[in-house]
């Protein structure tokens, strides 16, 4: 199974490296937010914001945005591959369905990892001063989440089979979830009803965890809660994605 996964992973990475524009494309939104919106937060107070501290609060949000959009849009790729006949010719081999999906999610994960590194590096001259261990742990966390999200995205892509059906789905799910997790501004600034609603969103806890990590606060409860949720959510989505991939043979 590892060989099969690696063969798929190699194929995805080769195609990506030959068309690197997609890697940069995925970065444009977060970088635009970083450059054009981020600096405004330096002048804002409340919720822990103010001066360069704002970056420690804002950049984790951007990492999550990168992961959710980057991994969430993976489904578009598989819809195209379905049309080309790539999925069929891979499914007609004895390769395990799990390898077919994991090779791809691994590719997504590596891409998001690299993009995250670029994002952090770009944030440095703007004034980001965070714990390096925290940054690395946050990127790892976000990558684990990306595995689950991309698996689910592939599954939805296989179910919907068409961009016109998939696009509204992914837009309709990702933006509300992201806004509700406090990616732009911390939820501590929110009125009661919004704050309580955001607690139900698993992504909120991931954001809280990465913010704590950026502060270097490894012992914070949020880190544990966020960590467990990340792993659980990642695993659940990966399981569901694989099952759907298998069941699409039916």
């Amino acid at each position, binding site marked *: 199974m590892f060989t099969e996964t690696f063969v798929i992973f190699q194929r995805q990475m080769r*195609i990506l490296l030959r068309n690197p524009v997609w890697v940069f494309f995925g970065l444009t939104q977060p970088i635009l937010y970083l450059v054009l919106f981020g600096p405004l937060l330096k002048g804002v107070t409340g919720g822990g914001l103010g001066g360069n501290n704002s970056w420690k609060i804002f950049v984790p949000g951007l990492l999550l945005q990168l992961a959710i959009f980057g991994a969430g849009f993976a489904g578009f790729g598989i819809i195209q591959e379905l049309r080309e006949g790539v999925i069929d010719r891979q499914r007609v081999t004895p390769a395990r369905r799990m390898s077919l999906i994991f090779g791809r999610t691994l590719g997504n994960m590596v891409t998001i990892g690299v993009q995250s590194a670029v994002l952090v590096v770009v944030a440095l001259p703007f004034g980001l001063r965070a714990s390096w261990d925290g940054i690395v742990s946050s990127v790892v966390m976000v990558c684990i989440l990306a595995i689950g999200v991309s698996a689910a995205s592939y599954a939805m892509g296989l179910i919907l089979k068409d961009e016109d059906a998939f696009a509204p789905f992914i837009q309709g799910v990702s933006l509300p979830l992201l806004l509700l997790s406090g990616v732009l501004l911390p939820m501590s600034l929110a009125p009661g009803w919004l704050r309580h609603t955001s607690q139900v969103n698993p992504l909120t806890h991931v954001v809280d965890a990465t913010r704590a990590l950026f502060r270097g606060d490894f012992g914070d409860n949020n880190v544990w809660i966020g960590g467990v949720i990340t792993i659980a959510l990642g695993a659940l989505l990966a399981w569901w994605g694989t099952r759907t991939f298998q069941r699409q043979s039916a």
Partner: protein
Amino acid sequence: MITAHALARSFRTKAGPVDAVRGVDLEVKPGEIVGLLGPNGAGKTTTLRMLTTLLMPTSGSATVAGFDLVSQPRDVRRNIGYVAQVGAAPSAGTLVGEELITQARLQGLSKPDAAARLAEVAPQLDLGGLEKRALLELSGGQRRRFDIALGLMHSPRLVFLDEPTAGLDPQSRANLWAHIRALREEAGVTILLTTHYLDEADALADRILVMDGGRIIADDTPEALKARISGDVVVLTLAGANPGNMARAVEAAGRAVAARDIATENNEVRVTVDDGGVAVAPLLRAIDTAGLTLSTVTVTRPSLDDVFLTLTGHSLREGPDGAPLHVATTSA
């Protein structure tokens, strides 16, 4: 090599359930080339996708390459090659050699074995020297040969080809036919192919399964199928045809010659007789006596289109409800 019993598949669509395949029994012996012939929508691709484990049958069973379709899918996959219908344009950044090696490795070949196999297969399919070429840059014929190479990398004993020459120019078609024949002649590969080209089924297949509306309606050699119609077809095209004229023409023709079959299509009366040359004169006289005018008379040797018309009541050029279907033109 393939034994299928009562294979069926229905789909749930917004318009209600669609029975794409309604109980298909078929058998393919090792070393045969069998053609599944039928119009678009007959259920050929669905049947193929079930036999290649890409789709679960709704009911029925099959044994493919010695393994049970439903309970041993991975073993089936190891022993078959599948060449799908032409798909969308490939992604940028995919190269011929790499894709073939990926396919081989997914089939379980080691890296060195895959490379060795590539060196064998590429020249067999006239792809030698194209290993570094991007898929996007291949011509239609090259792309199709690449698709077939994908299905052959693991040297399967049984290969499924779905509309292998659809969309190709006549030269590429003939070229591909030669490659398909060579597969059986040189490597003893069993082949099941689907097509809506009558000349393709006639040229390649040892046996033809005619499929329409989800069922197999005939299973025989091309010669035997044509012999069922047996004899020549005299086609009388009536000028100013209306149902009344047509009925009189049919009646006149029936009285004039000993016809094996008389069918009508639009303004044509198709009279199947043992010898067209002998039948033309009496037929013309009878039509004239009946006071009808002909615009053309043709004597043709039977084609599989005539087979289809006899078997199903509608020609390959029409759907089951008589509405015209677009189909590639064929030679009679």
